[in-house]
């Protein structure tokens, strides 16, 4: 799914996070924190650094091949480098830079600590004052030009950080490069993020427009917690991924067991194989969650301890019936629900949505 999570735009509303149509929360802006961020404005991000390589023909050729750029100005005896390569000559590459000025790292670290852990480049503004040619040795300085107030975009809430870099060849200013990133807390989509009827309109459009539309953004919630997958239960989750509910079976005594364990509870046998659950079950016990609220969930909801037809029990959400109508003995059937692109969980759908209190008895 590609959709609304993608757009980046500088929001005008400032500190407003929208969780759904008509539902918005004022995010407390920590003035003290914003002051600390502002203090980085004007501080150097890199001082008198040198490009790792002089401007050179092989890097130009690789760039032109990647871009499909066949401009003859970039090849031959009097070749110039494509001007848009300006930043390339300053990049640290796979091994990164050493001896970086501390201010920039400190600023990013500060934002990381505050939960703005993701980063995306949003704007780039380059001015070319002098063509670069193979052999030119680049030096550069960079300054933190600005750190924005807290802003909300479709990607999440964060701060824009703008740096300006001046590139020189010897004493000549060859170009300037202004670069803006968004350091943000990503919004993750969950099963609650229903595609609105006018979903197509939620596609990201021009960033400027994005800013204005954040009040009507799709419903975003933090991601549902991930299951803890370890060596002992990896097979179970691999089965779930393939939409199969696997029950462990001891190959010594034939006993079925769940949750997955290294050894058999009954005979102590260490060898096992699996059988696939048929998918029939009944509610053995349940709770209805009202509190504590957790942003990835939407209480109240029912969590059932389901007794499978095979005899083992497992925990899962009970769907298809109002949570206050869930009863012990309620017949349920296995389903696999996709919560996001990487999370599938087994859930249990009520087979008799009209269950009345007292209809089913505890066995």
């Amino acid at each position, binding site marked *: 799914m590609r959709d609304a999570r993608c757009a980046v735009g500088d929001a005008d509303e400032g500190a407003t996070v929208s969780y759904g149509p008509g539902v918005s929360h004022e995010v407390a802006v920590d003035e003290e924190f914003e002051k600390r961020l502002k203090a980085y404005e004007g501080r150097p991000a890199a001082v008198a650094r040198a490009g790792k390589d002089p401007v050179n023909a092989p890097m130009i050729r690789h760039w032109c091949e*990647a871009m499909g750029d066949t401009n003859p100005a970039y090849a031959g005896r009097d070749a110039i480098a494509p001007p848009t390569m300006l930043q390339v000559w300053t990049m640290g590459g796979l091994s990164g830079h050493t001896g970086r000025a501390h201010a920039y790292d400190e600023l990013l670290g500060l934002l990381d600590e505050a939960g703005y852990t993701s980063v995306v480049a949003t704007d780039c503004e380059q001015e070319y004052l002098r063509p670069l040619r193979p052999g030119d040795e680049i030096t550069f300085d960079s300054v933190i030009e600005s750190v924005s107030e807290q802003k909300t975009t479709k990607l999440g809430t964060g701060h824009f950080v703008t740096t300006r870099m001046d590139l020189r060849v010897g004493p000549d200013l060859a170009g300037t490069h202004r670069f803006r990133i968004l350091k943000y807390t990503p919004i993750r989509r969950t099963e609650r993020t229903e595609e609105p009827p006018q979903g197509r309109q939620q596609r990201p459009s021009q960033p400027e427009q994005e800013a204005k539309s954040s009040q009507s953004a799709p419903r975003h919630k933090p991601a549902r917690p991930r299951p803890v997958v370890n060596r002992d239960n990896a097979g179970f989750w691999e089965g779930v991924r393939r939409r199969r509910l696997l029950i462990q079976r001891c190959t010594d005594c034939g006993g079925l067991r769940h949750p997955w364990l290294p050894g058999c509870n009954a005979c102590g046998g260490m060898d096992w194989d699996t059988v696939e659950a048929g998918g029939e079950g009944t509610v053995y016990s349940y709770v209805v969650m009202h509190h504590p609220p957790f942003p990835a969930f939407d209480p109240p909801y029912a969590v059932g301890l389901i007794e499978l037809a095979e005899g083992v029990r497992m925990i899962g959400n009970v769907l298809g019936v109002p949570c206050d109508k869930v009863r012990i003995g309620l017949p349920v059937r296995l389903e696999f629900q996709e919560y996001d692109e990487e999370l599938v969980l087994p859930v249990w759908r009520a087979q008799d949505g009209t269950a009345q209190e007292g209809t089913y008895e505890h066995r």
Partner: protein
Amino acid sequence: MNTGDELPPLEIPITRTLIVAGAIASRDYQDVHHDAELARRKGSPDVFMNILTTNGLVGRYITDHFGPKAALRKVAIRLGAPNYPGDTMVLRGRVEEVDGDTATVRVTGANGIGKHVTGTVTVTVPRAGEVTVPAATAATAEAAEAAVTASREESA
């Protein structure tokens, strides 16, 4: 070259190869531009194009149109919807302003999910028969000369 001129659109198929080749050519090893698994862990459905590649493609679009003598002066872009593999980006341009031999071109690049890039490019296009001596180059040559003179004076 007149105000209001529309540049013919350029379709760029967004392949995984383009994304990765662009990232490496620009020496940008952020995992989200080459490792789909890590990109997904960070909440993106797939790898996506880096800003330097977009910048390069915008530059190419302009010089493809105005010819090899055209000199890029300024490229300012803003990103919106990401370029994911399998998509196609269509670059379009419109001449917004002409001042002598310098044009300002508004560029947009739309993909299947929205506007990937909006930007402005300033380009100098010498008229037929003219020799390209960009003013900025002349200025920097003067600066270089001055610097050389200064260093001579210092060493003297």
